[in-house]
């Protein structure tokens, strides 16, 4: 279990995360939602130890250190691969550093997405780069896979393929924390939705609960965010001076 206790993070003069408490159980697929700047990326970067923070982040009761960091993987829209290296060279690099690297899964996904082993990553299209970034995160052999808007720039078919592949290949102990704006797309793929706003967790619900209540994910998000459906029409009427 990945447990986040009373996590606080501030940048100079700005509180980015406030008293975040979150538990990610093994095997869950969790969607992390929030506006731009809500704190999604900051939360992931704190979990991975890229940022200093106040509070506790525990992996099966232990602090995240170099000893257990290999149990976490990360796919980001910023990309974390080496642009000059080929996919094959990345495989070698990962195998060297991550003993649980899933070679078979890697080959399977590379083949499925028709990605070249020989070409350097910088020659890939944006969509292919995203695919490769996610492939690496899925094949590292981690138990907790953090994905920060990994499909930004991919077309809808591509994303659909990925969701299906993800559901198909994930093993029971593998946990995914997926940050995305694509609510409707991931609705049927995630098991739980966590909402973050202004650095605070404002919603945490299982998809089963939502289903039982007859709500959609988009509806739940709007409700939690107190989204005013008429704000556009009101703004437009203000702008056009209508009565």
């Amino acid at each position, binding site marked *: 279990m990945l447990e986040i206790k009373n996590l606080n993070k501030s940048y100079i003069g700005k509180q980015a995360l406030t008293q975040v408490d979150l538990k990610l159980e093994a095997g869950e697929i969790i969607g992390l939602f929030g506006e731009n700047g809500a704190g999604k990326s900051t939360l992931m970067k704190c979990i991975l130890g890229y940022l200093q923070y106040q509070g506790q982040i525990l992996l099966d009761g232990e602090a995240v250190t170099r*000893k257990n*960091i290999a149990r976490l993987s990360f796919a980001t829209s910023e990309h*974390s*691969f080496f*642009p000059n290296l080929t996919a094959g060279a990345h495989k070698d690099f990962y195998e060297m550093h991550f003993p649980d690297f899933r070679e078979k899964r890697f080959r399977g996904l590379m083949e499925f997405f028709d990605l070249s082993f020989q070409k*350097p990553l910088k020659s890939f299209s944006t969509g292919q780069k995203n695919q490769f970034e996610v492939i690496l995160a899925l094949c590292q052999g981690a138990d907790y896979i953090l994905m920060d808007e990994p499909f930004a720039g991919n077309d809808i078919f591509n994303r659909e393929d990925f969701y299906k592949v993800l559901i198909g290949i994930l093993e029971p102990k593998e946990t995914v924390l997926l940050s995305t704006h694509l609510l409707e797309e991931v609705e049927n793929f995630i098991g739980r939705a966590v909402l973050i706003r202004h650095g605070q967790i404002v919603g945490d619900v299982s998809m089963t609960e939502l289903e039982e209540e007859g709500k959609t994910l988009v509806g739940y998000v709007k409700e939690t965010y107190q989204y005013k459906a008429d704000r556009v029409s009101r703004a437009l009427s203000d702008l056009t001076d209508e009565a």
Partner: protein
Amino acid sequence: MKWKNLQSKMESLVPAGIDLQQELKWIRILLTASFLYSFIFLLALSNAYQGLFIYVAKKKVLMDGAIMPDFVKLLGNSLAGFLITVLSMIGILLYHYLYHFQGSKSIYLMKRLPDRWELWKRCLSLPILAALVSFCIAAVLLIVYFGIYLLITPEICLLPNQWEKIWEAFFKAGRHI
């Protein structure tokens, strides 16, 4: 096979995907330029040596009371190229670190490797190795040049405490740095 092993060993000492051959080429150029620049000592030595003599009836005769300038004075800044090479390795080190932000954020991967030293090993190894090589060449040249100085200078023209003066100059330079 051995060459391939050496190459892959070398590649594991620099950031993944960096052009190692290009970096080695620049280091070679710096070291060669430093080596060639050091020849100004030989030029200065040759001039000082010629100055010890006069020509009498086309015969080279040692001047009365002729004194060879100190070794450190003749050496001047002829080994400065090697110091510049060492200092430019700081630039390579910085480039190696910043490389992990070019075209992607591979720094994220490097910072979550189980081996905490991997990032620093890949950023520091080549600059440190090159700086050591530069330092060693400079030290060898210093000894060789000092040997040449002692060998060609007539004993009567040598000023005393040459070795001590080298150390003195060395520590003085160290203090300036």
